[in-house]
């Protein structure tokens, strides 16, 4: 727990605790009376008898600050709790009931926000009297609209979630849904905002006191102390500085505590905590030859230092790829297949450590600086991602996005780029390219967007196209269109394609070669038809039998792979698949199996086919044959 919050949080909690205790126990502390004039010589600095000095009337500043804390914290805590008490039920009602209740509450809220807050506070306090109670009520009421907004927003976000729907399906009554399903989830953001609200209220009370509108003399308040001290700024600056610093620290503490609590619930920020910088020694690269081929990956590794330990997302992957071929990388989530692509392209997050070599036509890409890499990305390596909904910038027109690489990399002028963009969009099968250029991504269907991203990836005539799950987010009929298009473009542009997919049937149909990944490692590779017809590694085989096929009979029992994909921080020793493998033996838990070539019956290695697997006890060829997917024609 301690490490999660950080030292600042605990210092802040400590400070608030000290101030709170001092305020509660003020009467028991050995202090001067706060209103005792000439307790010491006026306007003197800190001394033994007056640790924080005296003010213009010779009153003890420490004592006045401690008693002032009663007002500041009392109003802070009281107003926030009162505001919560009024605002939370309204917010929950608006967020959960929606419709009329929501419309009315939010309309009232709009008016309340438009009403000048300070005018309200000034008026009430000026006319009704500046008692602690009035100030507290005023500040509480002023805080209500913010509470309503926050609680309503949080309620809305949870009321739409499926677990609330599930509770209704169970027959749970509304009251119970509110208390059991919604309130516990809204409580965390509310707690966080309560602290931030206290900071706001302490400042607001100070502002009122500063204007002489808070609790009246002789009761000291922090804002009042600062206001009084102003006149002595030139002769005795400590009189104004000391309450200023105390107020600053208190407000800062409330803000810090609130912010840390919010970070606990805010998923968006939780991944951004500064990563502990771990020095990872440069990874040695296995000896290898640079081949005369389009793309060569040698011993590619991608490691992440996470708070839980070192994650080897990609752990030593090598392959080569020629023009006009499609290499598929298959695996389940967490296998490292997408990370492999990003590693090759040099598009890893800052916390990643990369190892291995990548050669493009014999040119070492890993030796390039980011700036040098940019001249390759686009012109020679094109990329298409999984989700076309997120692959295009939502606020820019299709035109600006498609023409941008043309202008940056190919140096085309505005007109030429436009003409080229029209040609490109037409080439990916978009019917009305001129109109398309003026549109925004949200106006297009998923299939259209994916065509646009493909057009962008092709705009600079790349040699290799990386397609990371290009059709997973699309409907089946559109999926087939897009895969056909990719295949056709590969032929037209004489490119190589790296196709990442979890869908074995897609891979079987469209790939020439396949790499099967599990827990960051290659477990089987080879010509696609061969690997799918005669899988040797038990994982590949089980995966093929686990996927339902149309040709299977109805109620066909699929092969179940027990357990779950491994935790990359805590991989089992030896073969990573061992805990889920039906054929594992002792050796599998001791030594990781290397990738070896398929041997003929007489033990001689098969040259040329390139079918390799990483397994100590591979499945015999006979049992594997019948169960592989058919690679049907295109």
């Amino acid at each position, binding site marked *: 727990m301690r490490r999660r919050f950080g030292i600042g949080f605990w210092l802040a909690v400590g400070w608030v605790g000290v101030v709170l205790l001092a305020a509660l126990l003020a009467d028991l502390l050995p202090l001067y009376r706060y209103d005792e004039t000439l307790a010491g010589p006026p306007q003197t600095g800190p001394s033994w008898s007056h640790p924080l000095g005296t003010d213009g009337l010779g009153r003890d500043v420490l004592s006045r600050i401690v008693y002032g804390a009663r007002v500041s914290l009392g109003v802070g805590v009281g107003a926030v709790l009162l505001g919560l008490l009024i605002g939370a039920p309204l917010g929950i009602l608006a967020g959960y009931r929606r419709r009329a209740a929501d419309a009315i509450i939010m309309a009232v809220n709009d008016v309340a926000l438009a009403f000048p807050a300070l005018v309200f506070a000034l008026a009430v306090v000026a006319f009704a009297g500046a008692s602690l109670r009035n100030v507290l009520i005023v500040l509480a009421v002023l805080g209500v609209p913010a509470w309503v907004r926050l609680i309503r927003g949080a309620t809305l976000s949870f009321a739409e*979630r*499926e*677990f609330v*729907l*599930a*509770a*209704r*399906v*169970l*027959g*749970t*009554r509304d009251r*119970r849904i509110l208390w*059991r*399903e919604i309130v*516990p*989830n809204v409580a965390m953001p509310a707690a966080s905002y309560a602290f931030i609200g206290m900071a706001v209220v302490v400042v607001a009370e100070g502002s009122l006191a500063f204007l002489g509108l808070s609790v009246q003399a002789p009761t000291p308040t922090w804002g009042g102390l600062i206001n009084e001290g102003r006149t002595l700024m030139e002769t005795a600056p400590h009189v104004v500085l000391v309450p200023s610093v105390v107020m600053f620290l208190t407000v800062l503490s409330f803000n810090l505590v609130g912010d840390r609590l919010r970070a606990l619930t805010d998923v968006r920020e939780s991944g951004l905590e500064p990563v502990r910088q771990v020095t990872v020694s440069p990874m040695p690269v296995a000896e290898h030859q640079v081949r005369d081929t389009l793309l060569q990956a040698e011993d590619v590794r991608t490691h992440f230092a996470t708070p839980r330990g070192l994650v080897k997302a990609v752990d030593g992957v090598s392959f080569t790829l020629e023009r006009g071929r499609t290499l598929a990388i298959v695996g*389940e*989530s967490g296998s490292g297949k997408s990370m492999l692509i990003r590693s090759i392209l040099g598009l890893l997050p800052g916390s990643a450590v990369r190892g291995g070599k990548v050669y493009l036509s014999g040119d070492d890409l890993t030796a390039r600086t980011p700036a040098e890499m940019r001249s390759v990305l686009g012109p020679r390596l094109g990329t298409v991602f999984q989700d076309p909904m997120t692959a295009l910038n939502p606020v820019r027109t299709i035109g600006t996005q498609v023409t941008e690489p043309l202008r940056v990399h190919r140096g085309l002028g505005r007109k030429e780029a436009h003409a080229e963009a029209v040609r490109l969009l037409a080439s990916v099968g978009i019917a009305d390219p001129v109109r398309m250029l003026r549109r925004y991504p949200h106006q297009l*269907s998923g*299939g*259209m967007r994916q065509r646009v991203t493909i057009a962008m990836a092709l705009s600079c005539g790349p040699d290799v196209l990386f397609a990371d799950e290009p059709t997973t987010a699309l*409907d*089946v*009929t*559109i*999926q*087939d*269109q897009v*895969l*056909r298009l990719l295949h056709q473009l590969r032929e037209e542009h004489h490119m190589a394609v790296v196709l990442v997919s*979890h*869908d*074995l*049937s*897609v891979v*079987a*149909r*469209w790939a020439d070669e396949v790499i099967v990944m599990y827990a960051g490692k290659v477990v089987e590779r080879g010509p696609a038809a061969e690997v799918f017809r005669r899988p040797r590694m038990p994982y590949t085989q*089980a995966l093929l039998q*686990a*996927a*339902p*096929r*149309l*040709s*299977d*009979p*109805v*109620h*066909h*029992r*699929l*092969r*179940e*792979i027990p357990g*779950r*994909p491994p935790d990359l921080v805590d991989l089992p020793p030896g073969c990573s698949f061992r805990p889920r493998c039906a054929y594992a033996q002792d050796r599998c838990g001791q030594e990781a199996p290397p990738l070896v070539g398929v041997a003929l019956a007489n033990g001689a290695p098969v040259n040329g086919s390139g079918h390799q697997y990483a397994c100590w006890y591979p499945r015999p060829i006979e049992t594997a044959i019948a169960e592989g997917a*058919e690679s*049907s024609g295109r």
Partner: protein
Amino acid sequence: MAGSGKSHLRPRDEVLLRVEDLVVEFPAGRGRTVRAVSGVSFDLARGETLGIVGESGCGKSSAARALVQLPPPRSGSVRLDGQELTALRGEALRRTRRQLQMIFQDPISSLNPRRRVREIVGEGPRVWNLPGDRVDEVLEAVGLDPATAAVRRPHEFSGGQCQRISIARALILDPEVVICDEPVSALDVSVQAQILGLLEDLKARYRLTLVFIAHDLAVVKNVSDRIMVMYLGKVCELAPSADLISRPAHPYTRALIASIPDGGLDLPPSDTLISGEPPSPVDPPSGCRFRTRCPRARERCAAEEPQIRQVGADHWLACHYPALPDVEPPVQPAI
């Protein structure tokens, strides 16, 4: 396609759930409405699994939610064991909920992150004042170890395990019908096989009747006795699973099958069976809703909506010009 009609419904006394002319509408902004489900009828016999398949926007999930009346459909009838659900409101509706349970697509979002598994699964019995001693039994039935799992919170489980918890939550009430809305589409292949196997086991063990909704035809075929194909809020074709896959008659069903890479059927390539993109559900085509993408469409398809008719043993179809050699177009009604 995209037809209406009720001729395919079986006699009332043979079915457990009977849905007639279901219509679901949503506001689409600017005062317009989308008809997500537009006059869909189907029924389920006790112990049967009905698969509903279709692409995004076909209305399959909206139909599922209308079955549990969340929200209630715009019009139409949902009869469970003879009781009309759409006529019920408030407490009376709540009392029927035990019989009809649901499993959702997103395993993470369908579990409250702040509650422990024992509370989540035990919620049903608590709401219904039933003894809570079956929590361990159902957790075991879905393949979780009650001793370790019950005290943990959802985030400590993988997607597949979360889906098991959801299934346990539905099962503990002994429902008559369980509606599974894309229960495996968020899962990896290996885990998907586990969940499909589990559903088949539980169906046998607890004598469940299932509605299984998915976009993946191969998955649907694996678990369903009958399959209903939907497009843009309408029914295209309804047939026993094996029959539907081996003798697809509706042009859309054929395109769907041909688009699957390992379809393994003697169908022409998918690009000759379907073209373009689905039209907007706000402004659907007249007549047959599939006609804008259908290579077989003729004038009649725009003018007249096809009605569901029988083309084989329990094989039902809504198409004027189906792709079956031995089926004639229906006789034009006399004017």
